[in-house]
């Protein structure tokens, strides 16, 4: 050594502060929390001894093996969902193994659970609970277990294998490098999405029937927007085309209120991206409920106030969002607030919505700190919702606001399953609002909402809160039709091939259409739902699949000239028996929707481009933008203009 270096060394050592005990304790706590999460979620065939020590040890080895195809997008992620899914498999027995690698989405059913849980849902006692959630919600995760599975296809992605499936392990080896490469290391993006391949092209002569559940969630659009505005194209798995299409309200004919809760409009139109195929556009519109006509609601906000909710796009946005919503509630409505962080607690006892001072004051007092006590929070929220439902006719809903994982603290999955079933019986609805990015658990949110007969929305801006909680509050709070399923049978004499755009996570088995025990999506007051098929008429140059040389002879012995036959099943809320609507689809079907169908097609095309669809024939974002621009219509709230802006941005990001 020499003088300079010695001096530097001495100076450096004296300048280095002593370790701060508080900081150290905090860091160690954070480490232990992560550790616990990590091992709760881990599934590792290589470490058999470990699995006996956690609750998920109940899961059979075989199930775990089946789930191995799960991939890991962010290696560093923790993952409870993995275990959660596996668990659901055990509980429901609904796991369908992929049989042919064609990328089909397996149908799904929450049905089994649903049958148990929902059979006697009282017609007038629905309770809605809104849960605002953050990282670790124990109880929910179990609830969630069932639904996750229900919508899952086999490759549903759980992006963080904390520990070691074989896939994850090999990727973790490169950790040090990855660390170096990733500028945002310490804010790892752990958003999770269901990994469902695009609906494949179907040959009508082989598979003439397409069945799916409607989907009125919009979370995917908001996420896509947030990604693009942040300067990145969203990961393909984050894009659910049907949710992008259904983000927008369309001007479809409004039903005369009463016997049938919604109208169905069918239109055959040219495909913007392929001159040789057609689009079959199905538009559904639920009846509108004037604010003054709607029955009172009981709302329990279940708000996760644990430490990670403190970002400005989480708790503060959430509080502002609820403030917006409050202004639109009626004096007969009641609001209660439950939080969970460290200890679960009722922050606000059921209070009339007219007492906005008290409600606002308790919202103001919320602050984010500590870890989560999710299970207790959920129980409390439900208990409160039931108490509020007791003796009045209002619907009750728990509204859960969360930014992510739900997997800490579950002790007994079986008990939680029972719990969830009971809650369904009690008629309390559950809606989910997602906040924040980074560890947003989209798959889980979707599942939760589906299971809770509610919708999942992703709130990234106050404007989005306005849309979800104010402009469309009717749809969010009042279900007018439940278990809405669509089945289309194509006529092989007219249509050679078809594919459903989007709805990959909503596919149903053909036989489930008529099975009222199989759960499906809900339509809220004023909601519009759109489904689009791309169809290839017989003899079109766009036909992709050759006829079989030894194939069946005469198809379409009943040549009616019809393209297809549409069937739709739904239940009015609280009823067990579904009603059927059916209508033939003729080649010239035109519901007279003006530019509405074109706009939906533009959104569909944009979504498919983002998903990496290979059947777009070189149709680009700029084409989608032009089409959207041309069919924008009145655009009263400016949502469509916003999409056009997003398209422009996406084009430049491309």
């Amino acid at each position: 050594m020499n003088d300079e270096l010695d001096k530097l060394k001495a100076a450096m050592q004296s300048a280095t502060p002593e370790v701060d005990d508080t900081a150290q304790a905090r860091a160690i706590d954070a480490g232990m929390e992560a550790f616990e999460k990590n091992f709760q979620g881990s599934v590792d065939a290589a470490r058999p001894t470990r699995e006996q020590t956690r609750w998920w040890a109940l899961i059979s080895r075989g199930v775990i093996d089946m789930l191995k195809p799960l991939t890991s997008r962010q290696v560093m992620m923790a993952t409870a969902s993995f275990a959660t899914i596996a668990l659901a498999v055990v509980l429901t027995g609904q796991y369908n193994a992929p049989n042919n690698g064609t990328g089909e989405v397996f149908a799904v059913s929450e049905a089994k659970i649903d049958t148990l849980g929902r059979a006697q849902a009282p017609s007038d006692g629905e309770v809605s609970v809104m849960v605002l959630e953050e990282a670790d919600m124990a109880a929910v995760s179990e609830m969630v277990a069932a639904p996750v599975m229900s919508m899952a296809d086999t490759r549903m992605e759980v992006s963080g294998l904390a520990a070691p499936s074989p896939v994850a392990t090999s990727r973790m080896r490169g950790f040090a490098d990855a660390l170096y490469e990733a500028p945002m290391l310490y804010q790892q993006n752990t958003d999770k999405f269901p990994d469902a391949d695009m609906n494949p092209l179907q040959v009508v002569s082989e598979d003439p029937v397409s069945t799916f559940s409607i989907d009125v969630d919009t979370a995917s659009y908001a996420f896509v927007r947030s990604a693009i505005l942040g300067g990145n194209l969203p990961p393909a798995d984050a894009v659910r085309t049907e949710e992008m299409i259904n983000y927008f309200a369309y001007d479809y004919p409004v039903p005369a209120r009463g016997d049938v809760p919604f109208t169905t409009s069918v239109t055959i139109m040219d495909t913007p991206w392929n001159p040789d195929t057609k689009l079959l556009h199905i538009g559904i519109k639920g009846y509108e409920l004037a604010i003054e006509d709607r029955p009172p609601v009981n709302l329990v906000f279940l708000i996760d106030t644990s430490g990670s909710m403190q970002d400005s796009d989480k708790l503060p946005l959430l509080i502002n969002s609820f403030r917006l919503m409050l202004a639109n509630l009626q004096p007969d409505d009641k609001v209660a607030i439950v939080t969970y962080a460290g200890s679960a607690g009722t922050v606000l006892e059921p209070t009339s919505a007219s007492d906005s001072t008290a409600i606002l004051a308790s919202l103001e007092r919320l602050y984010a700190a500590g870890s989560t006590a999710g299970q207790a929070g959920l129980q409390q929220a439900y208990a409160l919702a039931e108490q509020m439902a007791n003796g009045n006719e209002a619907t009750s809903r728990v509204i859960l606001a969360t930014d992510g994982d739900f997997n800490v603290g579950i002790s007994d999955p079986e008990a939680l399953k029972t719990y969830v079933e009971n809650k369904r019986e009690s008629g309390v609805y559950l809606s989910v609002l997602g906040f924040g990015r980074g560890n947003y658990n989209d798959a889980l949110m979707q599942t939760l909402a589906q299971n809770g007969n509610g919708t999942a929305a992703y709130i990234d801006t106050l404007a989005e809160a306005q849309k979800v909680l104010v402009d469309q509050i009717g749809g969010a709070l009042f279900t007018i039709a439940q278990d809405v399923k669509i089945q289309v049978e194509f006529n092989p004499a007219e249509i050679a091939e078809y594919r459903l755009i989007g709805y990959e996570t909503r596919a149903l088995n053909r036989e489930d259409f008529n099975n009222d025990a199989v759960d499906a999506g809900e339509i809220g007051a004023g909601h519009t739902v759109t489904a689009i098929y791309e169809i290839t008429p017989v003899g079109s140059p766009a036909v992709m699949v050759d006829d079989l040389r030894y194939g069946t002879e005469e198809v379409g012995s009943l040549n009616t000239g019809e393209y297809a036959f549409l069937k739709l099943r739904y239940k009015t809320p609280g009823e067990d028996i579904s009603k059927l609507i059916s209508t033939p689809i003729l080649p010239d079907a035109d519901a007279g929707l003006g530019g509405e169908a074109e706009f939906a097609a533009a959104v569909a095309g944009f979504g498919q481009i983002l998903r990496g669809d290979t059947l777009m024939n070189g149709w680009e974002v700029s084409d989608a933008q032009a089409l959207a621009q041309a069919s924008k219509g009145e655009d009263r709230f400016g949502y469509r203009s916003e999409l056009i802006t997003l398209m422009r941005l996406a084009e430049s990001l491309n």
Partner: protein
Amino acid sequence: METSNEKLAELAANGDEAAFRSLLQRHYAIIFRVGFRVLGNREDAEDLAQDICAALPKKLASFKGHARFTTWLHQIVINGARDVIRRKQSARRKASGWGETEVLRRDEAAETKAELDWLSNAMTTMPQDLRETVALVLGEDMTHGQAAEVLDLSEGTISWRMSEVKKHLREIARKEEML
């Protein structure tokens, strides 16, 4: 006899909570110290240390195959610190860290202040690769060989860097004399 770090890491990677806790307790100070010496800022170093503690459970699986736990841990800290710096730069924030001597000055006597100014000046003007090297060789008393292993460089490179550091310090001294 104390359980070795490597053994603890193995136990922790297999889900042993107590082992993981002792690992953290044993190494928090090192994580903080190295972070501080590269970043030059207490808050940043504490944040980094906390992030590393939280990220460690998942990283443990990648420890397998490394000979020494501390070497591996040092790598993580150095890489983490690089990310902190890169993030700050990309946010176009004014570089903090060793440039901010106010924090250090607090409660310090006058002569210490002069020393800190000198240190701060020396570290700020030093390129990042040299700063990392200094943090390991002088700060952690590592041999050039050990530092080379952490930084995944040859021992010769470390020796060369240290001589660069010397040059750098002499240059500073020369400038001071000219004032």
